């Protein structure tokens, strides 16, 4: 008797919860009578991402008056990863959502949580490199959000012109430039550790150099045969981070600064180099109008000038969770087809300033691209000029890298120690993913 009433109460409680979830999820949703559908689209709260989402929603609605798209935002970084995973696991995800491709995409168990898109017409139109980053278990799950971009050093061309410097091809050249910049009273390297993700670029953006030294690194790394701490080329990224700190090349407020502060410092010419992801140029131009032409880009230099090249990130993806069904699912697929079409590319190019090629066949960049995009192009055109970042070649990316790089970059921890700590972090992630050999 007791058990039964407890059970009944539990059932009642669960039903109430479920009903609550239902009504929350269907707020302002489909109205079947008029054939009108409202889709919710979750994007991260980056200035550009929101702009991109809203422009896409607007242009798509103009073409499909029956479908309205509401853009919702979430935090970026680790907090956003957590939110995505939680919402997916509780079946409470928005109808369509934008999220990283590559290793983070692999970590949300696509085969269980996402709707496969191989049968869609646009699947054939996607760039193969991109496709590989949103494919799991042989099935395609995403459409590209924005274009390819790079993790490299944005530099102030006015500072370079004034001090008569050349774009460095090796790390030693880079450090020599830094010494001259420092002597001129300008901060050579900008770091912004309040936005912890920005601290990772010397490591992640150095991957073209790692691959140049050892083309098999991604496979060995995934199979637990290669480590950051014991592979000299991979360790170099951590060492570079320590070197720029130890040499006193960082901006004074590196520990308290945020991305926007760093962009402003770069735009104003108070800092010369900012290792960062190239799409932030669009934010730099929006916040500091008139400075776009001053800012150029070069790859993070390695030891060898001959293999100098760019580390490239694949676009993020737009995905449909399995919780989207019926009329909404059809509408969501339509939206993805729009995103992955030349019209969608045009819409995205109108919203932000693209810095790299789109991942859809038939899409072209607008003629008035930024200097950053112009500087990237030769590397992308050259067959050996660029490599995808490690997170697109291996499913494992340790979640604590940004804290570790902050420590190494602030002089709290030595490079070798940081790399070893990161190897442990990687091990945890590999075990969580259930990979063989860990």
């Amino acid at each position, binding site marked *: 008797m007791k058990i039964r009433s407890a059970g009944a109460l539990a059932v009642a409680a669960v039903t109430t919860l479920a009903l609550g979830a239902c009504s929350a999820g269907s707020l302002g949703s489909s109205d079947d009578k008029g054939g009108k559908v409202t889709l919710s689209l979750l994007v991260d709260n980056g200035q550009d991402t929101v702009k991109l989402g809203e422009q896409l929603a607007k242009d798509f609605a103009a073409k499909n008056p029956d479908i309205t798209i509401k853009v919702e935002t979430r935090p970026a970084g*680790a907090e956003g990863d957590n939110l995505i995973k939680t919402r997916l696991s509780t079946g409470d995800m928005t109808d369509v959502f934008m999220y990283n491709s590559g290793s983070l995409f692999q970590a949300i168990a696509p085969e269980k949580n996402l709707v496969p898109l191989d049968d869609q017409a646009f699947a054939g139109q996607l760039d193969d490199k991109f496709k590989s980053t949103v494919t799991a278990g042989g099935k395609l799950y995403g459409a590209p959000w924005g274009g390819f971009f790079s993790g490299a050093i944005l530099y102030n061309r006015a500072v370079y012109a004034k001090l008569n410097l050349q774009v460095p091809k090796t790390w030693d050249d880079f450090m020599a430039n830094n010494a001259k910049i420092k002597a001129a009273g300008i901060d050579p390297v900008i770091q912004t550790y309040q936005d912890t993700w920005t601290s990772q670029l010397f490591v992640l953006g150095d991957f073209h150099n790692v691959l140049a030294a050892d083309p098999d690194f991604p496979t060995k790394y995934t199979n637990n045969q290669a480590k950051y701490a014991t592979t000299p080329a991979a360790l170099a990224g951590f060492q570079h981070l320590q070197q720029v700190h130890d040499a006193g090349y960082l901006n004074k407020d590196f520990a308290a600064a945020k991305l926007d502060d760093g962009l402003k410092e770069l735009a104003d010419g108070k800092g010369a180099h900012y290792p960062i992801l190239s799409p932030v140029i669009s934010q730099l131009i929006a916040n500091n109008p008139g400075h776009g032409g001053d800012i150029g880009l070069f790859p993070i230099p390695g030891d060898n000038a001959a293999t100098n090249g760019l580390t490239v990130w694949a676009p993020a993806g737009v995905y449909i969770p399995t919780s989207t069904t019926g009329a909404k699912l059809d509408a969501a697929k339509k939206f993805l087809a729009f995103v992955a079409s030349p019209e969608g590319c045009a819409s995205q190019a109108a919203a932000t300033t693209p810095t790299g090629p789109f991942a859809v066949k038939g899409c072209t960049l607008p003629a008035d691209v930024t200097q950053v995009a112009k500087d990237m192009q030769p590397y992308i055109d050259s067959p050996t000029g660029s490599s995808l970042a490690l997170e697109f070649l291996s499913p494992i990316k340790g979640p604590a890298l940004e804290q570790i790089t902050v420590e190494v970059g602030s002089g709290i921890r030595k490079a070798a120690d940081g790399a070893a700590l990161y190897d442990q972090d990687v091990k945890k992630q590999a075990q969580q993913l*259930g990979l063989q050999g860990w």
Partner: protein
Amino acid sequence: MATTTIHQRSRPASASATTPRKRRHSPYPYWFYLPAAAIYGVLFLIPTVLSFYFSLTRWSIFDSKFIGFDNYVTFFQEPALVSGLVHTLVYAVLTSGLKVVLGMLLAILLTSQIVARGYLRSVVFFPVLVSTIGVGLTFTVLMNPERGLINQALDTIGIAGPGWLTDPRYALLSVALVDVWKGVGLATLIYIAGIVSIPAEYLEAARVDGASPWHVFRRIILPLARPATVTVIILSLIGGLRSFDLIWAMTRGGPGFTSDVIASVIYKQYQAGFYGLSTAGNVVLFLVVTAIVLPLSRFLNRKEVEL
């Protein structure tokens, strides 16, 4: 904790007054307890038992795999954990100690005959009412090394303030001080209640005997406010051991791992999708808090009975 204290003291008296060794008959029929028991079971008992199970699994978004004690092994190998444990203890002891001392001093001030006593009492209590996250964000702005009000103020009198939250040496201490600022109101309130409840006869008797103010404080107020001290220590120690929100709002455990406490280490594991691992961490936190607070509470309460 306060209720426990009272309960333990009153029990022997009531037990001897009524028939000993025989439980008093409950005025309610058993079914009366069912709703509360069901809610308690569903919302507290089952999750607690389940968490012990899930701490033994590798738990991803949808499935979990039983892996024995691997999570505990991983958790204890976590380099951030050892420093996190130390930080937690430092934080808990520091905030708890300062709250006891400052709370006692403020309470003595606020029970004296000063003007606007009621107003001043509420002013001390205001920070307790403000949302922790709000306090954290406000102080993050105030403590900015370059543009923050605190360092600008120090600058005008010629002191170069440190990077309160960005210097690894000070980050944890800065957060602890903000915690004290926010929490001392509650400690003061408990002490005020404790001091006010001391019978005036003792104070009068002391005065007649010619006791100095220091003696009154040392021999009367301090020992007789002991229940308040016990409550403040236990409450603030538990609060300090499991503190998370203020630290997360102000430093996110940073720079790097230098202000990580157990709770933020656990949260980071959860954030990274290591659900089994973070559950194991919570079990560890539960055991640590119990291991520290249970003996402490016993010890402090026993002393009180002896008085």
